[in-house]
């Protein structure tokens, strides 16, 4: 049976990229779910743009009594305190990113291009200017991991030769995890590394505008 990966499974796949001691920023949406899947024995420090590092779990709806308003992440979610966490100002927070101290950023996106460009802050007709921290994150992080659905709900392609939406950054994506594939942007082009169970490279190619290069060790998504 050919199913798409659930958001949880996508997040689980992304969390495999985290190493012990990594400083990781998680964007709102699917990326946020990664926090739940940190492998045993790995201490990953989450960083939030508004000035927090190494904080604890996100408070779920059924634990709302635990909410303290001074423990909020960049996406507006409340977290629990944790031993070893720290707070700092927004200047140091963005300094941390641009200065090379953020190991991984996981973000959602609207579109990713053949060269690893990405667009995630504006869609046509939007009168907002919602740039926020995305441009800094994709510039500064050592690894940029994008998590997104491979096509839109109405079937439009999102992995494109060139992004048509305003860019967040050029040639910045290191790994793209979608609900049907894991793709690595390289200088030669997009390399298909893993596929969702039941999916073939041909089927994934059909939903992808640029030509995919098949990895020598192309395999089913390993979790």
């Amino acid at each position, binding site marked *: 049976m050919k199913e798409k990966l659930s958001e949880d499974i996508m997040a689980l796949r992304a969390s495999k990229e985290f190493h012990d001691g990594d400083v990781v920023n998680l964007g709102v949406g699917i990326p946020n779910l990664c926090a739940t899947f940190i492998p045993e024995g790995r201490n990953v420090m989450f960083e939030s743009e508004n000035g927090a590092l190494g904080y604890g779990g996100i408070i779920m*709806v059924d634990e709302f009594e635990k909410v303290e308003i001074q423990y909020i992440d960049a996406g507006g979610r409340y977290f629990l305190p944790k031993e070893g966490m720290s707070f700092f100002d927004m200047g140091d927070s963005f300094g941390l990113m641009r200065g090379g101290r953020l190991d991984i950023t996981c973000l959602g996106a609207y579109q990713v291009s053949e060269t690893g460009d990405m667009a995630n802050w504006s869609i046509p007709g939007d009168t907002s200017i*919602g740039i926020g921290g995305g441009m800094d994150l994709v510039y500064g992080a050592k690894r940029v991991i994008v998590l997104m659905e491979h096509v839109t709900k109405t079937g439009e392609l999102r992995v494109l030769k060139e992004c048509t939406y305003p860019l967040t950054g050029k040639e910045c994506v290191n790994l793209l995890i979608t609900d049907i594939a894991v793709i690595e942007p390289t200088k030669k082009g997009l390399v298909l590394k893993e596929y969702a169970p039941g999916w073939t490279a041909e089927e994934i190619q059909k939903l992808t505008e640029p030509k995919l290069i098949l990895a020598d060790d192309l395999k089913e998504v390993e979790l």
Partner: protein
Amino acid sequence: MNKIIPSFEEAVADIPDGASIALNNWGLAGGPQNLILALREQGTKDLTIITQNFMYTPFPEEVVVMPFMLLPQMKKLIAGFFAAASRYAYTTNLPAEFVEMEKVLEKEVIGHGNFVARLQAGARGMGPFYSPVGIGTVVEEGREKRTFDGKEYILLTPLQPDFAFVRADKADKYGNLTYNGTCRCLNPVLAMAGKTTIVEVDELVEPGQLHPDEIVTPAAFVDRIVVNEPGARGSYEYTMKKLHEMLSIPEVRGAVIGQAKQMVKEEGDN
């Protein structure tokens, strides 16, 4: 030396029409709520508001006061993130005229990192500087581009607001400040950047009660302090209580916890 001002009205009384005012807006706490209210009350016009996030909040004013309410008094916005109020048009308590005002507002939005870096340059009395962030995006439009060592940068100018509204957790009368949790955020940068820095604080302590190594903002950066009445509107305790009142309503709980941003965006995120 005593920088305590008895009321918020007095603390903002000399702010003239056309002034630039910088303030923190990220999360429910950490914003100078009573200073914003005093400025609205005063009706000061043609303001340039400088804040990292400018957006309508679906929370009623009784829960939280945000810079958005100053829109009718604003000429210009300088921000890192701007979400159009029209996105919230479906909510009940957004005044329709705000959507129109927002359209004609002059806006300079350049992402969080470039935004805070401009304030830091202003705070430190530095001149323009080159940033590597925004190259290849709309942010580079209309800005000087230059290559150093094979790498492209855009030129940004410092920001030194006429007034900084700072929200702190504790202060002594000299103006030494500490912050709590993510309420810190932009506040220490603002305290340094403002030509005049006005602080709204929850707790006044005696000089010496804050350990000299733990003070985040040294007294030199602070001009005026107004102390929030414990438990009164805008205080940490009050906002916390109001938030938990809302959280106790099962229907709104999901919208408040963790979905603040989903309400803003259709899909994806940054």
